[in-house]
């Protein structure tokens, strides 16, 4: 085998190893973070809403390792989410003035805004 062939062989083996490991890590283990907006109960939680949208849906921000949030994955809406006890990474962000981004607002329940 020529030196060029050896180089190529080693090169492709390395590429295959990388490819195989990525496949295992992402596809099989689902070991990646998922940033997703989960449904939020405005009566019990501080929820975000989009500004200037009628009938905006309240939400909270979730960052979770994908394998711990199967309902947030492809087939399902991320409703009634709470961090699993065994999750290595699971962060739920509720609305407050410090975390607001452009185009967002904190949800104010209608009952709370009405004068007593």
């Amino acid at each position, binding site marked *: 085998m020529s*030196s*060029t062939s050896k*180089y190529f062989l080693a*090169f492709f083996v*390395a*590429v295959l*190893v*990388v*490819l195989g*490991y*990525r*496949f295992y*890590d*992402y*596809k099989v283990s*689902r*070991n*990646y*973070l*998922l*940033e*997703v*907006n*989960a*449904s939020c109960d405005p009566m019990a939680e501080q929820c975000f809403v*989009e500004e200037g*949208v009628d009938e*905006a*849906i309240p*939400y909270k921000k979730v*960052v979770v390792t*994908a394998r711990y949030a199967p309902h*947030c*994955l*492809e*087939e*399902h*809406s*991320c*409703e009634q989410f709470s961090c699993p006890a065994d999750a290595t990474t699971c962060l739920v962000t509720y609305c407050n003035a410090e975390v607001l981004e452009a185009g967002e607002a904190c949800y104010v329940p209608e009952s709370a805004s009405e004068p007593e």
Partner: protein
Amino acid sequence: MISFFNVQYCYELLISQLPISLVLYSHIPTAVAALAFSLFVVWRARNLESACLFLMCVFFAAWCALDLSTWFAFLGSADVMFAWSLLDLVAVIMFFFAYYFLYVAITGKDLPARQKAMGMLAVLPTAVWTFFGKHLVAFDANSCEAIEHPLITLYPYVAEGTFIVAAIVLLVVRYRRAESDDQRREIVLYGAGVLAFLLFFFSATLMVTVLTASETAAFDPYNYEIYGLFGMPVLLFYLGYLIARYRAFNMKVLGAQILVGALMVVIAAEFLFVTSTVNIILVGVTLVITTVMGYRLVRSVRREVDQRERLEQLSKELQAANTNLTDVSHFKTQLLSLASHQIKAPLAAIKGYLALVLEGAYGPVPDKLAAPVEAMQRSANGLVDLVMSLLDLRKIEEGKMDYQFARTDLAALVRDVGADLQVLATEKNLALSVQGADAPVWVKADAPKLKQVIQNLVDNAIKYTPAGSVVATLSTEGRNAVCTVRDTGLGMSPALLPRLFDEFTRDQRVQRTIRGTGLGLYIAKRIIEAHGGTVRAESEGEGKGSTFVVHVPLEQGA
């Protein structure tokens, strides 16, 4: 409006950004064309250059497939993350093989080990980050895209930029070292193709990254990405041209083959657009017709090209054989000339002494000796004629025949010839007569050489006429003097007439009975042509006599 991440959401997000058909059209035909082209090349050429091209195209096609997966986020976030994570690595490797291919293509050598190592070193950081998954931070379910690490994701552009700079440096250096215009043109064509491919890709992907980071794009920055793929057709066009024009990869492929192939890819790509059954059938029929007609066209063109190449090859061989023959002919003339010069002087001495002997300068010649000495004199005269003919032949062939043109009375020359050869004719009991040579006929001629021609014709007539008469007639016809020598001799076959004035041509019937060199008529023709005249022979057939007609221009004002 923000919704929760699901299949429907990501699909709607995609089609709101740009038409799916455009995404498919930019990725699939380009990748298929690159793969098909490189596969064809590597199958036909089977060398390092084609292998590098093939690997480059394989990684390009892989990149297209992976990128397409990232667009189709509705297939699942895990698929997107997997595909997205490999994009940078595949792109950097593709750049490495593009440089590798360019190097082999324009130098004809393998990439030096040090450059291979440096290339792999450039790929290594991306491979490490990809292995550990450090270049992707998370999957953003709201935008259906992976979130890239802001710094690590810049490194692949550094590596790709380095390969581009290396390619430019390589092209400049090799262009300067090129020894011929053809080499320079090939370098320019390879360089233009590869750089177009790399720069399209590099600038489009870099623009996406910059716009994504700055968040200033009017619409989704990833839309720009599809334009980066259009460098590949440019590269394929250049490579196709290089194959057809310069036989790159040592392949003989016709322009028609490339054209038909490209046409088929374009028509097949229409399947990505058409949706109705009728249109699908129409495109299918068009593709089948194009394939069949294209196959027939390529076969026809190939046959013609093969024939042309065979003719070119034969022409080259003929040219070589002709050159060889010219050399041999020149050598033969030189040899004859040398031999003739060496023979001429001793012959002159023999001829002179024999004449003195016959004239009685050394006392009376005994009767018994007279006949042999006369035979010796005839032989010596024959040999002198041969030597003189050979020397004339050499002069004619080398264009060194010296003519001294002067006002000459052709009638006097004809009369002189008649008088000179009267004895010879009488010896054979032939009636030799000269007609129409009483009044002067003025021509501009080299008198001795013109006389040599007429003498040769009359002498031949006497030699080849066993019985009967020889008549030399002089007349004028328009602006020409016409000298006709007619005999009642052996005549000639129609087959001999066209070759009569060629070198060493003799009538087979008399080759052993009548002495001759076969050069007299050839020399006569060349001398007459040098006078601006013509000579021709006529005969009604064997045994029916011959007529030789010489036309020489009259002196102007005569």
